[in-house]
């Protein structure tokens, strides 16, 4: 496939996804509102009641089909990201070879055991997942540019926005980015905090390799990407002033979320803050229904369980204080109440390790 055909096909799919995100989603929302107002109180409805009202309608069936298959076509098939990159494998491998392989920016661990929950499902419908192919990080990065068509449509990029929230007025000397992927979430931290030490860990070698490549290009001197399980790191207790994660919790089974939070608590210095960005705040049954459907269709088996967890109680049971769980606007023009277009239920989940806590 030539470059022009690949871009044309991907552009077509993105336009189709935009139509789905705005027009089709709006039609499904309105169709439910019509049914709910004639039968029961929309505010007190359950996910099951929304399912009862919508799942057998032709409109919703097309909505659901397109959610699954537009994503499938983005990754798989003739014009998919995987074929495109596979046909150019040698050149992409060559670009990865230019990255400083071991040392200051990157530390790989070939012997790392990848958990079964991680290898058992191809998340985001990315064939082979984000870990099994040397090019998986590059494919993931390219795909992530168009996951949500309206993301960052107005104002700053989502990671810059999240960094604003995580840093507030502070300048932590040590930061750990847990489950950093290909390092997009880590970039604003190492760029804005040149005098701080930024560590980032992830399970996927192909992703952190790309992350290190981006840091190398940016001539960053204060960051290191390590292949490591964020729920079980080798950092000494109390090592970090700030621990962050972006879009990681929803990839973890509930038991692992508990271990992840325990580890964040352990490596935080007393008084240190943990700030996560994830998908959690769902104000009504309709959006909850849409979210659970998305999880199933996009190969996200743990997104649903996270949405149903009592995170506030869990964080307090782990010893955290000052727990804050607040909706997050991924773009300037988002009206959280209006529910105009499909969006992820972006939420900041933050908590502090108490002062004087040495455990």
């Amino acid at each position, binding site marked *: 496939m030539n470059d022009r*055909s690949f871009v*044309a096909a991907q552009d*077509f799919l993105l336009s189709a996804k935009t139509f789905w995100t705005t027009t089709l989603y709006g039609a499904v929302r309105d169709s439910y509102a019509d049914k709910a107002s004639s039968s029961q109180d929309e505010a007190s409805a359950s996910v099951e009641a929304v399912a009862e009202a919508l799942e057998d309608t032709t409109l919703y*069936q097309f909505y659901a*089909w397109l959610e*699954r298959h537009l994503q499938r076509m983005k990754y798989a098939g003739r014009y998919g990201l995987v074929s495109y990159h596979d046909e150019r494998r040698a050149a992409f491998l060559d670009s990865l070879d230019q990255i400083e392989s071991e040392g200051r920016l990157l530390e790989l661990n070939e012997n790392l055991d990848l958990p079964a929950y991680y290898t058992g499902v191809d998340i985001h419908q990315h064939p082979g*997942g984000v*870990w099994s192919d040397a090019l998986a990080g590059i494919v993931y990065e390219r795909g992530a540019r168009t996951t949500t068509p309206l993301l960052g449509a107005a104002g700053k990029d989502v990671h810059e926005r999240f960094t604003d929230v995580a840093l507030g007025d502070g300048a932590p000397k040590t930061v750990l980015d847990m489950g950093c992927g290909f390092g997009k979430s880590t970039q604003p931290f190492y760029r804005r905090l040149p005098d701080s030490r930024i560590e980032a860990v992830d399970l996927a*070698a192909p992703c952190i390799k790309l992350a290190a490549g981006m840091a190398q290009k940016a001539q960053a001197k204060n960051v290191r990407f390590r292949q490591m399980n964020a729920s079980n790191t080798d950092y000494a207790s109390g090592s970090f002033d700030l621990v962050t994660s972006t879009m990681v919790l929803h990839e973890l089974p509930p038991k692992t979320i508990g271990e992840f939070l325990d580890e964040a608590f352990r490596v935080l210095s007393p008084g240190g803050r943990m700030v996560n960005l994830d998908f959690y705040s769902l104000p009504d049954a309709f959006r909850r229904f849409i979210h659970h459907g998305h999880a199933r269709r996009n190969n996200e088996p743990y997104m649903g369980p996270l949405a149903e967890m009592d995170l506030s109680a869990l964080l307090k049971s782990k010893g955290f204080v000052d727990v804050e769980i607040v909706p997050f606007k991924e773009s300037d023009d988002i009206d959280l109440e209006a529910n105009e277009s499909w969006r992820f239920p972006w939420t900041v989940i933050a908590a502090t390790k108490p002062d004087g806590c040495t455990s």
Partner: protein
Amino acid sequence: MTRESKPPRAEQQFFDDPAIDRIMGAFMSLATEHYVLLDRFRALERELAKSGAINSAALDQEPDESERAESLADRNAFVEALMRPLLGEQDALGAPGKFSLKTTKSGA
């Protein structure tokens, strides 16, 4: 680390009849291919116009009556091929209707 190959799993089903799920897949593949061709056609036209081989403005003009008449038979043949299957009629004589071998018994 590489992943061991696994047998394919059945695709998720969204419509009451799974045939619609599958035909939608074929339809979206054709739509994508159609857009890729359209994009390439435009690029080709742009390059040809740049080299002076074609006059883009002439291509955009409404065809005159003689040109439309000339293409009418071809247009009708295209529509015939597209829509004839909707009638559900055989092209070559054979047994009609839906058949099943489920209840066929020898001597019955």
